[in-house]
């Protein structure tokens, strides 16, 4: 990451995760990077992508410069197709209507488990974090994309607390718990795109972002991570992608 780039780390995150979304999919998105990425995808390659917010919103229209402060305020409902109670929008996940859950993460481990509840011992935490919100339900009930900064303290061997389940202890342990559907699909960071081994369910590198060397990923990951010899390479963010993003967030509240 020594060369000068014409985009910020957050913009890279938004672009790279937006590209994973497919036209026609239904995406349950958090605010911040996920919402930016999903809206970007709509504008670039997935006009028929549908966004859902946990506040109870289906198919809204995000007004550039008026990004919602959370998924629970009226800005989220701007020109939406439907507004419904929280419980019912979350039940769409349980019913199986949602293709992808898409959120940020504070701490993730080798098996894709996320922690947004406690740093340190939950009985005497160093930090009490805000908690799960819809995260636990989304990650329990659908396939997940997580976008987060790639830092050693965030990529740990074992999270202090499983707030949102990934593959638990790997292998078949997720299904064995009773979580028979969903699971981690991709983790997108400012260094790489990561996926999970089919059998062991361990996180591994799928592709490196432009200018990123394998060691940079290793150095910023708190556990041994597999990087295949012939690992993929992502294409750098394109002008049109950055233009759409910057129009959405002109004050760079989420992409500074």
């Amino acid at each position, binding site marked *: 990451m020594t060369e000068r780039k014409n985009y910020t780390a957050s913009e890279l995150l938004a672009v790279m995760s937006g590209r994973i979304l497919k036209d026609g999919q239904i995406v349950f998105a958090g605010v911040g990077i996920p919402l930016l990425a999903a809206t970007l995808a709509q504008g670039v390659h997935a006009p028929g992508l549908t966004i859902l917010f946990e506040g109870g919103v289906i198919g809204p229209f995000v007004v550039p410069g008026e990004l919602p402060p*959370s998924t629970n305020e009226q800005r989220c409902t701007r020109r939406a197709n439907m*507004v419904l109670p929280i419980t019912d929008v979350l039940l769409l996940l349980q019913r199986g209507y949602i293709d992808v859950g898409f959120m940020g993460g504070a701490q993730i481990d080798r098996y894709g488990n996320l922690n947004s509840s406690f740093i340190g011992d939950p009985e005497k935490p160093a*930090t009490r974090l*805000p908690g799960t919100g819809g995260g*636990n339900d989304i990650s*329990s009930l659908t396939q997940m994309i997580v976008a987060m900064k790639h830092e050693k303290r965030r990529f740990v061997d074992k999270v202090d607390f499983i707030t949102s389940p990934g593959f638990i202890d790997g292998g078949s*342990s997720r299904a064995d718990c009773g979580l028979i559907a969903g699971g981690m699909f991709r983790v997108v960071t400012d260094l790489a795109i990561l996926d999970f081994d089919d059998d062991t369910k361990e996180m591994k590198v799928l592709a490196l972002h432009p200018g990123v060397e394998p060691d940079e990923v290793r150095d910023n990951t708190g556990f041994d991570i597999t990087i295949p010899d012939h690992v993929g390479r992502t294409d750098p963010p394109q002008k049109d992608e950055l233009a759409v993003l910057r129009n959405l967030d002109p004050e760079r509240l989420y992409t500074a």
Partner: protein
Amino acid sequence: MAEETLVLPHLELRRRTAERDRGLREKVMSLEEAASFVSDGDHVALGGCTMSRTPTAMIWALVRAKKKNLTVSRSIMSSEGEVLYGSGISEHVITSWFSQGIVWGVSKVMRHYTESGQARFDEWSHMSIGLRYRAGAMGIPYMPVRSMIGSDVNARLGDEVKEVTCPFTGERLLALPALNPDIALIHVQRADAYGNAQLDGLQFMDIDMAMAANRVILTTEQIVSNDSIRRAPDQTRIPFFTVDAVVEVPYGSAPHECYGVYEPFFNHMDALAEQTKKDPEAGIKKYLDDFYYGPSSWSDYLDLLGAAEIVDASRRGRSIYND
């Protein structure tokens, strides 16, 4: 009355419901009168979510009435949760997410009270809280669910959740305990004097909460005639017989938003976040002194928020109908 058991036995739930005066009758009163419906030790459920349709005015009245030992549940807690902890009316909240809002980062007040062990924050998944209210609303003692399983959120709840097996498919599911709050505080855009409430926009968990609770205090931006309610009965979301008190409180959710009427008072929220950053306890106490104990009435409180801010929040609020 406090919840004696995790799930109220059905006959006890029915007994409490049967005791209520559910006839069609006017029940308009002041915030102070309505506050008397809340007893120390009650389980109080809050309508709205995060910074939306928070029953701020009713919480304001409960703080001023110096209630004690309340257990408070809500889908997501914002700054009203900081007020609950700071005022000491509740040392026990049940929610899925607790901070002022994403843009202000992790709440220093929440951290201060929970990390020091002064207050308890029981974390459930968002949908689980919703389904607990829903089971309570439906009159069933539990709701099977496919979420929360396998996580530490589940593990930490111990005996408050149980595993069940579907008698048809053999699938393992989690049983969530029904939640019938002693009282629910809900703020709406309009209601009639009997308590028929119509809600615009986001409904959150309010309807299930109203049906589940053993009492409901409704605060409303405006009291409208029963005739106007009857003209569009398919817009009524909360029926009068679940409601015990109706209080007309304009800007009753401020500094949070009320859909289509006003957006959040962002400057006020910024100032609160700033004020609680260094010394969270002193910061929230000062906030309570200034905005909760200081004003002599809700009108005085609005005066402190400031007319220019009210006008701006209202302009933004109405803008949702511009498209």
